[in-house]
């Protein structure tokens, strides 16, 4: 299959899947047993006011019409107004999204750098100390509950040692100028260096907690892939023709060993979005994950549907990009 027709086929499939996502989210938010009208007006509102509110929210229409209204709204980027902040959900999401992007990017950078380094060292020095260390570090990374480890790190680095803050994106008394919403980038643009360093300090623990399990997966894949490559004939050839070991590993082996790692990075992104929900809750990080948790706990159904659809969209687009990249690299994947 040509790459262009592969991309076209995947895009059509994605439209179908996104339509399904919208239906699932609609069903989920409509079976929420709590009465949204009661949530807005309180329990003792007069029946006339309740009816008026039901009419205003479109809840008196047949369920099929409600579905059409909802789909029409979503296609126009309108998820309705949050029942808690009473602002439009899309405004809320755009305000919370940059914090999640900032955290996700710093975590994935951390995970890729540390994960590939550990995996590489682990394979090159197989069965030596660094290999054992990296394998224990990795198995712990996929086993320790992030929400618990986060609390324990807060206990040590905030309560006991006082080295790092316990949460938030920056200290309360700072009021950085908002340009893009990415605090680090904004503070560089505006030259507010005190904000920049403050934000870095706030980023350390959440980045570690969110990136740890990805680091572990990347290190495991990298180790296996590197061991595979190191046994290939061309590596032996390179060594035999007298190239130093370091050159062979860094120039010949590493580049080939990185290919499977590229895929796993894409897959890890989904885990990262799931993890962001927990990490943001623990570290009071003002991102999309915490927004969704709060809206679920308060049964704020327009916010729930907006948030989950947004997360599913980001996730699907990332997966699509990874698939396309992979198909471009390896024609066998275009089946």
């Amino acid at each position, binding site marked *: 299959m040509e790459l262009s027709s592969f991309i076209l086929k995947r895009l059509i*499939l994605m439209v*179908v*899947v*996104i339509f*399904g*996502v919208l239906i*699932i*989210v609609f069903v*989920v*938010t409509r*079976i*929420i*047993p709590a009465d949204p009208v009661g949530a807005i007006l309180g329990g003792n509102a007069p029946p006339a006011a309740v009816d008026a509110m039901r009419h205003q929210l479109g809840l008196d229409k047949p369920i099929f019409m409600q579905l059409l209204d909802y789909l029409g709204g979503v296609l126009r980027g309108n998820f309705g107004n949050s029942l808690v902040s009473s602002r439009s959900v899309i405004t809320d999401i755009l305000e919370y999204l940059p914090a999640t992007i900032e955290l996700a990017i710093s975590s994935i950078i951390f995970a890729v750098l540390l994960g590939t380094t550990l995996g590489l060292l682990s394979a090159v020095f197989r069965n030596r100390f660094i290999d054992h260390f990296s394998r224990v570090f990795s*198995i*712990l990374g*996929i*086993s*320790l*509950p992030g*929400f*618990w*480890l986060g*609390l*324990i790190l*807060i*206990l040590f680095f905030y*309560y006991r040692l006082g080295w790092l803050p316990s949460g938030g994106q920056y200290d309360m008394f700072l009021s950085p100028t908002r340009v893009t919403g990415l605090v680090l980038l904004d503070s560089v643009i505006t030259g507010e260096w005190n904000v920049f360093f403050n934000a870095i300090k706030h980023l350390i623990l959440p980045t570690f907690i969110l990136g740890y399990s990805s680091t572990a997966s990347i290190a495991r894949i990298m180790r296996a892939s590197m061991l595979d490559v190191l046994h290939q004939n061309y590596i032996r050839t390179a060594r035999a023709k007298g190239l130093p070991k370091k050159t062979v590993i860094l120039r010949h082996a590493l580049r080939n060993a990185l290919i499977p790692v590229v895929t796993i990075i894409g897959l890890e992104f*989904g*885990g990262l*979005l*799931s*993890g962001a*929900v*927990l990490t943001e*809750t623990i570290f009071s990080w003002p991102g999309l994950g915490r927004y*969704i*948790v709060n809206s*679920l*706990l308060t*049964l704020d159904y327009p916010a*729930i549907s907006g948030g*989950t659809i947004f*997360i*599913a969209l980001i*996730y*699907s687009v990332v997966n699509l990009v990874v698939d396309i990249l992979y198909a471009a690299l390896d024609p066998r994947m275009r089946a």
Partner: protein
Amino acid sequence: MRKPSSDKKISGQSAFREFLRERKPMLDDVRHTVYLWKKTPLALVGTVIICLFLLVALFAPLLAPYSPIATDLSRKLEAPSAAHPFGLDQFGRDVLSRVIMGTRIEVSIIVIISVISIVIGLIVGIVAGYFGGIIDEILMRITDIFLAFPRLVLAMAFAAALRPTLTNAIIAISLVEWTVYARLARAEAMKIRSQPYIEAIRAVGASNIKIMVFHVLPMSISPIIVQLTMRMGTIILTAASLGFLGLGAQPPLPEWGAIVSDGRSYLMNNWWITAFPGMAIAVTVLGFNLLGDGIRDILDPRIRR
């Protein structure tokens, strides 16, 4: 294959020897697996952890020194001591007893979620893979839709919509987990349906349902079991995460994630309420992951050689 006609003539002892001789390849295989198991110390550690976990769950009421829900406000937030190794929580409940009784909740979470998700996954996967064509296309697109969400986010949405309780958290996670098994079962069913013996059975007149239940299902179960051992750690983590977020088991149920969440407000001065149940989650998940890794390695033909 044993020949039943010759069996009757052989005396008991030689029949046993005959049996051993015929089964030698299989017995060697088992012996080799046990040998590999012993050679993989981490898998052994995992096995020990999981056995301990199951034993604790089995004998929980005998092992727990106090009631997991009896409160004693006069002794609330007491630090760990010889009488209460894990300390007391904000209601004066013994944290160790809560962690021990919690093992039963975790075991039931794993068992119920595994059963539900495997049943749904097998049905969807086998039907899709066996029939192929438009049925396959529809079922796999439905699977894709569930996979379009990050797992935890979808489980959270289901749990909240159904109202947060332990039962609903179990249903919610099952509704997310089945996709793993559906994809596996589909791949197996596609491989099996083109085998000549399936053709033969169909020619004899077996119905599609019969072929799927008696011939495709048994053949596709083993990769599913392997996958299951790898998923169990994740299942506990997801359930604990829901409990922690308040979307799963509710107090006073001693679900580990919910206890960690309980202790969060007392973290600064009373770390034990958070630390110990979290450690229990960590050790159990570690056990399942080590076991899963070990099983994968042992079954991997490249390592088996």
